[in-house]
């Protein structure tokens, strides 16, 4: 939320590892946008381990490795 005030990325479930763009500061629409409320159950995001290795790990507390 703090980093992407002008962007729908701010509440997107994919924000921590999205590969579509490096500039998430001003995105007004996205077909990949997925909000937590769209799902029946709490979000469990699966990401490949390579992506986790390359990220800072800050947002990965709830992620499940595949």
């Amino acid at each position: 939320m703090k980093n992407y005030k002008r962007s729908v990325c701010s509440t997107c479930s994919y924000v921590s590892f999205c590969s579509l763009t490096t500039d998430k500061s001003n995105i007004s629409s996205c077909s990949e946008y997925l909000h937590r409320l769209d799902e029946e159950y709490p979000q469990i995001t699966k990401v490949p381990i390579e992506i986790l290795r390359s990220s800072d790990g800050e947002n990965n507390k709830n992620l499940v490795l595949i």
Partner: protein
Amino acid sequence: MVTKTLKKKRVLKQGMLENVMRQFNHAADSIDLNPNIRKILEMTNNELVVHFPVRMDNGEVEVFTGYRVQHNNALGPYKGGLRYHATVDIDAARALAMWMTWKTSLAGLPYGGAKGGIQLNPKKYSHSELERITRRFTYALGDNIGPELDIPAPDVNTNAQTMAWILDTYMSTKPPAERSMNMHVVTGKPIGAGGSEGRDRATGYGVFLTIKFWAEQKKVDLRNRKFIVQGFGNVGYWTSHFLEKEGAILTAVQDASGTILNEKGISVDSLLAYSDANNRSIYGFAGAKSLDSSEFFGLDCDIIVPAALGNQITADNAKKIKAYLIAEGANGPTDVEAEEILLKKGIDIIPDILCNSGGVIGSYFEWLQNRNGEIWQLDEVMAKLEKKLKESFFKVMETAKIRNVDMRSAAFIIAIERLEEAYVQRGIFP
């Protein structure tokens, strides 16, 4: 320090509006638009800001801010989405409302343009809180929306359920004898509550159709042509589905989770099944190998369908593009510099305002069915969509040829000329 923060915020806020205005001014200049009509179209007609209280699950009351900007209604009732997001504000609503005016005008629909929403972070609210927020917002909008005045539709974080709540609330404010006359106050409803068959696939089918029309025009056979898709959401999937049915081969897909490639072809429905079972992620699909995201746009293919984000094709990757057609399923995927490079290279771009207009045309069909008390079958909806889109597409091609401009400029010219004609014929009251 304070001054610096404000300055930065203003620049960011105006980005979207500036972009829409730049496209408008470019087209207005090229057709030498009547200066009085330019004055009208540069401004929005109505801007409504509502503050309304809602009781939360814990018993506390929270006050929300909702927006509805109605840009222009020279061609018919205002039409545009409602989004629930922290970034919703008056500037964003203005830009997107203006964008809707051009889109409905180009599509030849009897609509104007509008946009709105509520400034909130929906993940903070429960389902029942969101229902109460939606109903109270609808009540606050009152008769500023209406089936013959302003027709909202789903957008970011709003869906068919949201539309059903709006419909129910709006109808409840009317006298009993008038209630069923108001089914078309919103589009994008669930099928059981007045929604239309085919609305789910309308945008993707529209993207496919524009590619098909382009191929017919250029005498290109789509069979065995390779295409790549960015974004495997609703638009990306349906576009791929129909292209595959036509004999084209999907060779690469990129989504938020990564990029996959199989030069021999990726089965669209197998990928959808995998994605559905894998939390909407294509990464790890067995029928393809993974690829670095930066290589995506430079892949060897005939058609690129960017169907996810804006500003994806830039000066950096435009030079590497080998495809001869870009079909913009997303809004604004090609930036200005990239477009110049692509056009110089002879690559055709089917502009977003035309390419992804199947969605709003599908909404129009839902509105028409409700208005006339009809229920159309899926094949009927698809046939009508094809007819409508064909008209727009060939009008754009013809204008591009006559005026010697690219397809995007032609699309804007048609949209603005239609509005100009309406104003010239009707005059200005009083």
